[in-house]
């Protein structure tokens, strides 16, 4: 391996002499996670962290009231038969014995074809979007970290979809994919529309063959650039010497990306996988609602949308809460699996 070339590193990052060397030193000196845990526990035991719990009280209270209590009620309401939001208002208490329905909601959900379709759609959405998004985002982040010409502008450009509200995102996709929208217009213009040799135009978000693909594409459109910029930020802390050493050893760019960079930030990669998994699993309802309304038929009804639809459109609160529980369990199982798969090796 070649000796670290500090001057070259400083030129690359543009941060001035010494910064990269410090970063290298800091990285090299960073303790492994178990060691760090032991150090922190020692510090807490010797009094260094005794006032710490007090500082967390406000956050804990908020968390308890706005997160733990509602989650508990999700499980409780699954056993009750409330007919819509107004039924809550009409009740004297949140838990009305007259509305207790035992396991009826669970039986109804687990035998309902709509739920099973939503389960399938969700599996496809998560199973396609997350495995496609993260590697592409990582490669984009790696590219941006190499500081290509205009990388700052590119970073802003790729990050922008993450700053766009879901309503605007829906509007953009509607304008592009409606029957009279941009994509069909382009296809018409190049002879692939109505009257052409092959007609590829369709009602993209109203065609059962393409509608779920539109939802997944919307996820990818927003997620790849945004996550890529986050990867670039994390990769900027990877010592350049590692790449240089790998290059000297004859590693290709592909090997440096996946054999070196990925190995160093594997834990961070896992964190991003977790976040995108959760966002895709839990937050698909708004974009489904805006673009397809869950249709055509049930082609884009995801579990997340089904929770909304049953609670707010069809006034079946108990049903929606059971679906919420299923989502919650999937979320937990997914987190555990992802954590195991992407645990940092050192």
């Amino acid at each position, binding site marked *: 391996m070649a000796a670290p070339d500090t001057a070259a590193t400083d030129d690359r990052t543009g941060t001035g002499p010494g910064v990269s060397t410090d970063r290298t030193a800091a990285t090299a000196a960073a303790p492994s996670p178990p060691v760090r845990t032991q150090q922190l526990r020692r510090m807490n035991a010797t009094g260094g962290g005794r006032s710490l719990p007090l500082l967390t009280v406000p956050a804990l209270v908020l968390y308890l009231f706005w997160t733990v209590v509602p989650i508990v009620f999700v499980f409780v309401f699954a056993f009750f038969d409330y007919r819509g939001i107004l039924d*809550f208002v009409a009740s004297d208490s949140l838990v009305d014995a007259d509305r207790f329905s035992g396991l009826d909601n669970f039986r109804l959900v687990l035998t309902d074809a709509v739920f099973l379709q939503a389960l399938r759609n969700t599996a496809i959405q998560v199973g396609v979007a997350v495995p496609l998004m993260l590697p592409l985002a990582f490669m984009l982040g790696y590219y941006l970290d190499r500081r290509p010409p205009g990388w700052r502008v590119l970073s802003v450009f790729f990050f922008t979809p993450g700053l766009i509200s879901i309503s605007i995102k829906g509007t953009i996709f509607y304008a592009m994919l409606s029957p009279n929208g941009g994509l069909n217009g382009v296809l018409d213009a190049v002879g692939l529309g109505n009257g052409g040799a092959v007609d590829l135009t369709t009602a993209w978000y109203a065609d059962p063959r393409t509608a779920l693909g539109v939802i997944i594409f919307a996820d990818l459109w927003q997620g790849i650039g945004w996550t890529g910029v986050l990867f670039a930020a994390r990769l900027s802390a990877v010592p350049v010497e590692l790449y240089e050493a790998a290059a000297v050893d004859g590693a290709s760019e592909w090997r440096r990306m996946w054999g070196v960079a990925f190995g160093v930030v594997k834990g961070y990669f896992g964190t991003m996988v977790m976040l995108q998994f959760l966002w895709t699993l839990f937050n698909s309802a708004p974009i489904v609602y805006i673009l397809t309304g869950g249709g055509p038929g049930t082609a884009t009804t995801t579990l997340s949308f089904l929770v909304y639809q049953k609670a707010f459109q069809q006034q079946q609160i108990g049903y929606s809460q059971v679906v919420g529980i299923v989502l919650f369990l999937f979320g937990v199982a997914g987190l555990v699996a992802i954590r195991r798969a992407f645990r940092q090796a050192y």
Partner: protein
Amino acid sequence: MIRSPRSHWAAAAATVAVALTATACGSDGDAGAADDESGGSVETLSVMSRWTAGTPEYDVLQSVIEAYTEETGTAVELIDGGEDIDVTFETAVAAGQSPDVVVVNLFDKSLGWLDAGVTVPVDDYLSEWGLEDKISEQAVQEWRVGQSVDGALQGFPYSGFSWPVWYNTELLAAAGVDEVPTTVDDLLATTEALSAAGIPPMIVGGSDWSGQKLFFQIIQTYMDTEEAQTLFSDGGYCDSDAALQGIELFVQLRDAGLFVDNVAGLTADDMNNTYFSGGAAMMPAGSWAFAPALAADEETGGTVVDSTELAGFPVPAGEGTFDEPTVYQGFTGVGFMLTPDGVAEDRIGASRSFIETFMQDDVVSQFVAEANFLTPIAGDYADDATNPLLEEALQLDGVAPAVLPDVWLGVNSDPVTQVSTLAYGDADAQAVCSGLDSATS
């Protein structure tokens, strides 16, 4: 009946949070009426309306409210509920901020408000306030729960509608069609002629309520009224020969090219804009589109209104339930509902005078003239119907009334629209009937 395909996400989320909080705190739902609690006279009446700013209806509403305030001294807090008034209203109620009067159409969630106790039956007020002779019996009947004579009256009906098919006779003539079709065979021939002439035949919002209504209008071709109401309400389409026949008729018309390309992805706005600009020869649209059609012609110098002939949707000759082309007609358009706050002892007087104001002849005339209402209010308002389309709709004959599904679908309206969108694609009859059964269960 008329609503946006999308309601406000944030409002929906807020409903849960507010409902939980309000209920947990033991709210009885009558907060927000400070005047009630003080026992003082009512200075402000709270009114939530589905007529949104920028529409002719809203403009008339505002002018009437100004006159009402000037005459009575009671201010009106007007809340624009918009097309998502059901969500807006339920959010307000959950937060203990119920309005006194709701101006709303009888559709989807509003059908459950009386049962939930957030609005009150108005049977007694109808007679006490002398409105029995003022509002048509048919309209009152349509506003009763289940449209049954024994059902409680959910509100005072105020606007009706006619929902014919619009035929652009200029475009039909350009395709060599001299008369609007009255039978399915005529319609198929018309479709063929239009397509051959390169004119898009019928446009409708296949992805929203407008497409859903036309879909139900067609599939009930072989059902009698009672069966239609039962199926719309409880499902069972796949077990009904009449329903399957109707769905197969829809599929036949669709596959014959009746609808414009990619119709499943279109909305009611697409439909109106395309038809108003001469981009399609036929569309099914209600009387609320009369004023915008006239405005569009005035703006563009077009002649669509003059070229349009209103008629029913063609039916199979010699078979099916209907002898004549079908239209939706009714009075579930918009009416006045009263909430428990609105009938509180010290507010009922203001609510009464507010509603009585709208029943005055000059006010009804204004709504007919400017908002092109079909009114259920007794009186001769024919001279006020100056819009040629409204005039034509009032004299529409040779048509049979179809069963409007709204009241019977109830809260299943949105899932059912997902299925009708599927039907406008290329789903077969079996997939459509299965979808309907699933959405209705």
